[in-house]
């Protein structure tokens, strides 16, 4: 039995994939001796060498753009963007270039590139470090968007990402990095994309979330149980591809639903979930669907983030209201 937290699971996945496949390399800011600002790449430089664990200039567009070229040359780059908010400096290289290269070359080229990017609130980061901008990449056809919520999934989804022939944006919930350990076995295993998972079963309401918001939903479900409300929690795991079947099935069963995410409300991926449910689960719904999200305002300074993020209290209140509607 090997217990690992999210960070250790990611580090272990990288190490094992680099050992298995000499084409796999890691590049980004401070990924070398420091092992990344969160230490996700700790020890990789010492074990796999400076040719495959590369500190790059502080320039996100070229980290992503060079990864595209590296992939075409035959390497398998795993690029780290230090924080998802800084994908703004690489946005034009992600969707329009990485995402479209297979299509724009009519399949001659594909980009086996993983972009790892920590994100999310609750750790009092400086400005731009916490922004949950995952939905921006859902509007970038060709990119897969992966949002692990726990250590076991973090490893299996990362190995799947590295082996996927297409580009993957792998968003890491930094708040959960060291929150606790769970069984994460040694040796490679993969979790397929496009498979949502029911992480808690209940009868009265379905909470749909991804990444760190899953943890909030599980805490909320525990409290709701104390009030006699039994909640299902669905971890969407990957926004692209999106597992419509599991989400629709879970919501159809309870007839009530709250969608929770850290991104701002308007046009967040929650809007896509709700629109899908409106067309595919309409006749099974017993109450309007609610969304608990961050507000449509810029991510605030650290002392304010408690009021900004979708707190457990807000999830409980929305679920209570929906369950009794």
């Amino acid at each position, binding site marked *: 039995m090997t217990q690992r937290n999210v960070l250790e699971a990611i580090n272990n996945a990288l190490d094992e994939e680099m050992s298995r496949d000499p084409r796999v390399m890691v590049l980004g800011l401070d990924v070398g001796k420091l092992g990344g600002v969160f230490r996700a790449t700790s020890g990789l430089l010492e074990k796999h060498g400076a040719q495959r664990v590369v500190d790059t200039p502080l320039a996100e567009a*070229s980290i992503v753009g*060079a990864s595209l*070229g590296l992939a*075409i040359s035959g390497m398998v780059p795993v690029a780290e963007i230090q924080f998802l908010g800084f994908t703004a400096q690489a946005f034009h290289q992600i969707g329009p270039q990485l995402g479209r290269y297979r299509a*724009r070359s009519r399949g001659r080229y594909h980009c086996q590139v993983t972009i790892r990017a920590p994100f999310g609130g609750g750790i009092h980061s400086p400005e731009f470090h916490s922004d949950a901008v995952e939905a921006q990449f859902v509007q970038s056809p060709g990119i897969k968007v992966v949002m692990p919520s726990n250590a076991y999934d973090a490893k299996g989804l990362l190995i799947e990402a590295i082996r996927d022939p297409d580009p993957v944006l792998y968003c890491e919930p930094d708040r959960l990095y060291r929150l606790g350990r769970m069984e994460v076995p040694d040796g490679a295993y993969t979790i397929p994309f496009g498979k949502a998972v029911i992480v808690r079963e209940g009868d009265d309401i379905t909470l749909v979330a991804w990444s760190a918001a899953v943890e909030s939903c599980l805490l909320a479900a525990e409290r709701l149980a104390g009030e006699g409300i039994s909640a299902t929690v669905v971890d969407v795991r990957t926004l692209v591809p999106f597992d419509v079947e599991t989400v629709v099935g879970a919501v159809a069963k309870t007839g009530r639903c709250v969608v929770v995410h850290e991104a701002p409300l308007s046009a967040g991926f929650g809007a896509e979930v709700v629109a899908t449910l409106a067309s595919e689960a309409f006749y099974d719904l017993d109450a309007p669907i609610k969304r608990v999200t961050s507000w449509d305002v810029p991510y605030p300074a650290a002392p304010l983030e408690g009021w900004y993020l979708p707190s457990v209290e807000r999830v409980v209140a929305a679920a209570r209201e929906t369950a009794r509607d």
Partner: protein
Amino acid sequence: MTARLSILEPDGKLVAGAKPSMTDAVLIEALRWMLMSRIYDERATALQRQGLYGVFSPAFGQEASVVGSAMALDPVRDWIVPQYRELMALVRHGYPLERLAAMGMGRVTEAARIPDGVNVLPNQVALATQLPHAAGLAWGLKLQKKDSVVMTYVGDGGSSEGDFHEGLNLAGVQRAPVVFFLSNNQWAISTPRRVQSATPSFALRAAGYGFPGVEVDGNDVLAVYSAATEAVERARAGEGPTLIESVTYRMSFHNTTDNPSLYEDPKQRDDASRRDPIDRVVRYLTRRGLWDEQRNNETRASVRAEVDAALEKAAAFPVVTPQQLFEHIYAELPERLRRQREELSSDGSQA
């Protein structure tokens, strides 16, 4: 200030003391490529005016830059990462002209696909994004100990993009085997070169990235070839990147939607045509008894026949089908996209 490398004067005489960088046979080959570029420009532009070709950007006036740089490469092991005005470089590198023409003529099907084994990346119109790609490609080839060099193209306009800086900077740090070929054609659509940068020479910028910058007369195919060959050799020897500023002039419109009469002083065009890259080679070869009117006519006729055959083949390729919208998006189409594809084909008006 960087000295501008020049070997062949506009009047067809060698610069005093300069030696030709090509043998006569290679120069005649270069001339043929340049003629093909110009004849293709004329044909494609005419077809565009008839509605048979998409928006087209001619290389008119820049043939020496395009051809001289590409001829420094070995198509078997080297790579081209183009911008979009280097069509004949791609053909010389092995991309069949009919496939490039097919793309221009809207046959954006498998016909337009870059054939396997042709070391060319797709054209790029999100300017300068190709430079980090080229840096990464060169870096990766070096990591795999391949004996390859990457030639990538950008313009005076594209050099203002942030990716220009990021791409060159990273290539310098990694000493990647890449040549950055900047065609300074004096225009970014209607925006003149002086608006792009206060630098007296784009080549000077290389100093900021720790590798050499070279300025060449971009209408002089011998000078372009000489600079490009040297840069390719440096890269192959593990000495890292070079920035080449090829000073040329766009002797036509930016593309077929453009109207230079709204912003270009006709005098500039006249000056440029006196510096025409093709004329000077013809003068040089004629002076040396290697070219005459008969040879000129024969070569033009054979090039025309080759271009026309390519255009004919291109027009015969299958047209697009709506189903191809869903091809080559991912290795495996996700369920959600499969459903969208079914929706498209169930709609009789579109399928």
